[in-house]
């Protein structure tokens, strides 16, 4: 049933899909990390409305299915006259969805830094932002690497959501190969292999990073 000839017969489709999955993942990876950090900081500011805003963001995007988050951008925004392609709305959806999880991971990391650290920093005259940037976050990052790398792996796999909104990703093309050849298991198995090609190096890289941080920490 598993026949690698399929991968070569449809190499154009699979490579195009792999490329788009890689792009979407890289963009969402960088985007969700930045956005997640901002939201985590918001959630911990002394300013109450900003805290609420951060909390609302996390609760909203973390508690609805990813598919619906993507549909908000794909089908919802056009009602406001903003039309984003399947690839763009899929990638944005993936970014905001993942950033909610990352925000929570980072917040946990920040809270794990003993309160005395920021108290000391504040009393030496650093502002809240400065305290965060120079004292708390660098320590928190080390703590949050394992949970965040988990989120990144999930992100790469979740990028298959692009297939539903015709985002021309790996899953989209695997479905098309399937419906053209009727070799369902085979077509999807090839996609699984190509996803592994992306996730295994990522998993390996984060493990290296963890080891290095553990040494310097």
């Amino acid at each position, binding site marked *: 049933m598993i026949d690698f000839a399929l991968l070569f017969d449809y190499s154009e489709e699979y490579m195009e899909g792999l490329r788009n999955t890689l792009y979407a993942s890289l963009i969402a990876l960088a985007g969700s990390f930045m956005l997640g950090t901002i939201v985590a900081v918001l959630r911990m500011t002394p300013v109450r409305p900003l805290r609420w805003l951060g909390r609302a963001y996390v609760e909203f995007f973390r508690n609805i299915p990813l598919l619906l988050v993507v549909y908000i951008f*794909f*089908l919802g925004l*056009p*009602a406001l006259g903003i*039309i984003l*392609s*399947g690839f763009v709305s899929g990638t944005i959806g993936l970014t905001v969805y993942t950033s909610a999880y990352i925000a929570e991971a980072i917040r946990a990391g920040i809270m794990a830094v003993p309160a005395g650290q920021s108290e000391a920093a504040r009393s030496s005259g650093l502002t809240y932002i400065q305290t965060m940037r120079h004292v708390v976050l660098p320590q928190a990052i080390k703590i949050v690497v394992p949970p965040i790398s988990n989120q990144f792996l999930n992100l790469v796999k979740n990028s298959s959501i692009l297939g*539903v*909104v*015709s985002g021309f990703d790996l899953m*989209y093309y695997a*479905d*098309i190969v*399937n*419906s*053209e050849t009727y070799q369902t298991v085979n077509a999807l198995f090839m996609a699984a292999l190509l996803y592994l090609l992306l996730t295994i190096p990522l998993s390996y890289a984060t493990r290296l990073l963890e080891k290095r941080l553990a040494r310097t920490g």
Partner: protein
Amino acid sequence: MKQRQGKPFTGILLVCMLLVLSACGGGNSSGGSGGEGTVTGGAGEAESGIIAKIKERGKLVAGVKYDTKLFGLKDPGTGVVEGFDVDMAKALAKKLIGDETKLELKEVTSKTRMPMLNNGEIDLIIATMTITEDRKKEVDFSDVYFKAGQSLLVKKGSPIRSIDDVTADTKVLGVKGATSIKNIEEKVDGLRVQQYENYQEAFTALRAGQGEVLTTDNAILFGMSQQDPNYEVVGGTFTDEPYGIAVKKGETGLVEAVNELLKEMKDSGEYAKQYEKWMGEAPPAE
């Protein structure tokens, strides 16, 4: 004696020739090629045989689909089957028996319709059946009663009016695995169709403005344009899948009756009326 024997023989021969001629005029499927009067006459009777049977029975038994929107769809609440095909069957019952209610509908699927016709469970098939050369070997078809084929659905007022207006840059939507994707990508060089899981998702994307054109069989598109009247089917069909009414092989009499009815309906405007009732627009020009 010899002369007297000759005269009746010539008479029979004349009758035979007349019968053969009339059989030929009527579509010619009778096997007897004129040799003996009784054979030809017998074939003639068989032709009208099914019509006689229908009249004797007092009702027409038609195989229609029960699950196909616009053509034959059973309302789960009332149990009534309605559609273009059903109305066609009613018109035929009226023509043959004089009463459109003298009609029994039987559910067929694409798989069951030919066997059911051949074992006599139904008199004819009116079930979105495309006329093909292969099928012509198994059954006899009437003239085309519905021109099915691939077409385009666009928002009303769209500059796209036909397949000629579709370029490689047009955002075209379709459904994964459908032959319609291949058809349009062959027609328009460099076009990349956005494909969705099913028709509902593709139509949702079209309504959200994610594409300019949705392409598939016109019968499905007509159903969508009725769901949302802001959308219309344009440009006729650019693939050819003519629907015909099928009868058992050799039932030429019934084929003739159906064709006659189609012509009457087209001439009287009844066909256009019925077409518009179900498809929401006038039939394409012949």
